[in-house]
């Protein structure tokens, strides 16, 4: 079993996925969810504002985890120039994504809280930014939401690409999307999980808490979330079945997950909390049209927890191939 990656990478992969997914969900409502119909809409507000901070926290943990990042931080700069490495792609994605996410979050705050906007406009030390205040806020916000979405897909996929790049050494991580197709499954699984966890945070929990779970497209939103949970279940099944079929180190990883040392985590936090319980909760919510407080909070928290455990489980059960 690989012992180099444990909780810390699992946490920053989770934060990366959740941050990217949150921005995607916020942007989705910005473009299609009638954001303009409401003065206060918790989904885009939470999605846009938490995205940047979560990514920053994830990057700090990543730098902390890299031995060189702690001892000789300037060596991080080398990561910008090694273009054949997926790490470099990720570094560039994050370099562009974080500022865009922060600006988008800031614009969303200004849009939701006009008083804050007025307060800032009145500050003398911000006079030099006067030309910015003349820009149309919502249109500018949409530009950042659009650019941010494209980068967010990249960041969410990247967390999976990072693992599959190590794949030849740890066969479970390089499981193909379909037998015979040389595209790894991890990026898709992590993208689906990123969207599902972000949906859980912004829609299931925060909208239930702050808006009683009711908004114009809530039923459709729950159906989409239902599809995401189903897709995640299918992708996890494919991951494990393929690993068992492949034999060797991949099968050993799958055995560890389903029957071995990590089986309790898998059955409780993935099967029960990520699939069965949220499926029931979302079928109920889709039928009703909105989440009740209990169903929204419980399914939201269970999906968030399972998103974290999914990454942890995949990392911790990586069995190295024979070298």
């Amino acid at each position, binding site marked *: *079993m690989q*012992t*180099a990656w444990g*909780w810390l990478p699992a*946490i920053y992969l*989770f*934060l990366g996925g*959740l941050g990217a997914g949150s921005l995607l969900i916020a942007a989705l409502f910005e473009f299609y969810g009638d954001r303009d119909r409401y003065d*206060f809409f*918790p989904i885009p*507000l*939470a999605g846009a*504002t*938490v995205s940047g*901070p*979560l990514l920053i926290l994830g990057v700090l943990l990543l730098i902390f985890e890299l031995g060189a990042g702690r001892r000789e931080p300037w060596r991080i700069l080398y990561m910008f120039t090694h273009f054949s490495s997926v790490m470099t792609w990720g570094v560039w994605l994050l370099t562009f994504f974080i500022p865009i996410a922060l600006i988008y979050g800031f614009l969303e*705050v200004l849009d*939701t*809280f006009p008083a804050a906007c007025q307060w800032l406009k009145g500050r003398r030390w911000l006079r030099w930014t006067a030309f910015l205040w003349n820009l149309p806020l919502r249109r500018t916000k949409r530009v950042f939401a659009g650019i941010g979405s494209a980068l967010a897909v990249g960041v969410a996929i990247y967390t999976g690409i990072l693992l599959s790049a190590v794949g030849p050494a740890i066969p479970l991580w390089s499981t193909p999307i379909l037998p015979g197709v040389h595209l790894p499954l991890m990026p898709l699984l992590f993208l689906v999980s990123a969207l599902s966890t972000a949906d859980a*945070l*912004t829609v299931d*929990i*925060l909208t239930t*808490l*702050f808006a009683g779970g009711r908004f114009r497209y809530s039923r459709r939103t729950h159906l989409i979330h239902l599809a995401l949970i189903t897709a995640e279940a299918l992708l996890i099944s494919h991951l494990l079945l393929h690993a068992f079929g492949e034999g060797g180190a991949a099968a050993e990883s799958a055995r560890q997950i389903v029957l*071995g*040392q990590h*089986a*309790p*985590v898998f059955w*409780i936090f993935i099967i029960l909390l990520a699939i069965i319980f949220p499926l029931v909760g979302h079928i109920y919510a889709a039928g009703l049209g909105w989440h009740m407080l209990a169903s929204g909070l419980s399914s939201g*928290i269970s999906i*968030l*927890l399972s998103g*974290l*455990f999914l990454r*942890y489980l995949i990392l911790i059960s990586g069995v*190295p191939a*024979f*070298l």
Partner: protein
Amino acid sequence: MLPRWSVIPLALALVGGIIGLGVLVEPLIQKVVAQPEPTPTPALLKYRAPQSWECLSCHISRDQLSQTVTDAAELERLWIDPAEIFSTHGRLGCMTCHGGTGDTQDVTLAHQGLIPNPADYREAAKVCLHCHNNVRTDIPEKHIHTPHERILTGMREGWEVCACSNCHGPVAHGAKPIASHEGLAAYCIDCHQARNVPPERLKCSGCHIIPHDITLDCEVCHRSTRTWSSVRLAVHPMELTGAHAELSCFECHQRPNFMGLQNACSACHQRPHDFGDDNCERCHTPEGFR
């Protein structure tokens, strides 16, 4: 009703809480559930390439080396081809495997704690086995059978076994004896003969998994290790010419030991006369059928 602004801190606090809960709950679950005996894992090999530059500054320069080494043969042995440092193992840096003291130009100090052959059975458990602790004994896709399991156990237990480099050579320095039979012979066969290793271990099947379902020794049919696919047709009791030469062995012979023929002549040839039976060989030979 919660104030609107609290959406943002609440979202961040929720994420923090979820992470904290996950980190706390997982060890508790692992404690409650009976754990199998953990597989022993070696400590990590310390990556010391950044400290190895001073080693290279001397060892890739014959001029520098000649200041401390006078014997030409010894100088050549200690010289490192700069191209080798970009190999997979070369990139790990000298000190990662060879130890010694880094970041110094003092020759004596630099060589303190040096491990001349890190692949030796006395050292390999601390060096090679960090990454290669899980090597296979049978490699069927390459038809190779190796004594890896016994050697790795020996290294862990401190038995006198051969060094990794006996077959694999000094992997960070370009040599690849395993790539050819000639290279292997120099390292393995001579040593095995000297140590009276049982004769069957010196045959092809001592290292190779036979890819066919047959029990004959490889060398009965195969001519050489270079052109292994050409078989020793001279051992065939009848000359294989014409259509016979184009057949694969098992279109006529039976597995696993070639005893008997599964196809009689009459399976392909028509009997042009009424007398006799289907056993053509009673009267005919392939050389002079008529």
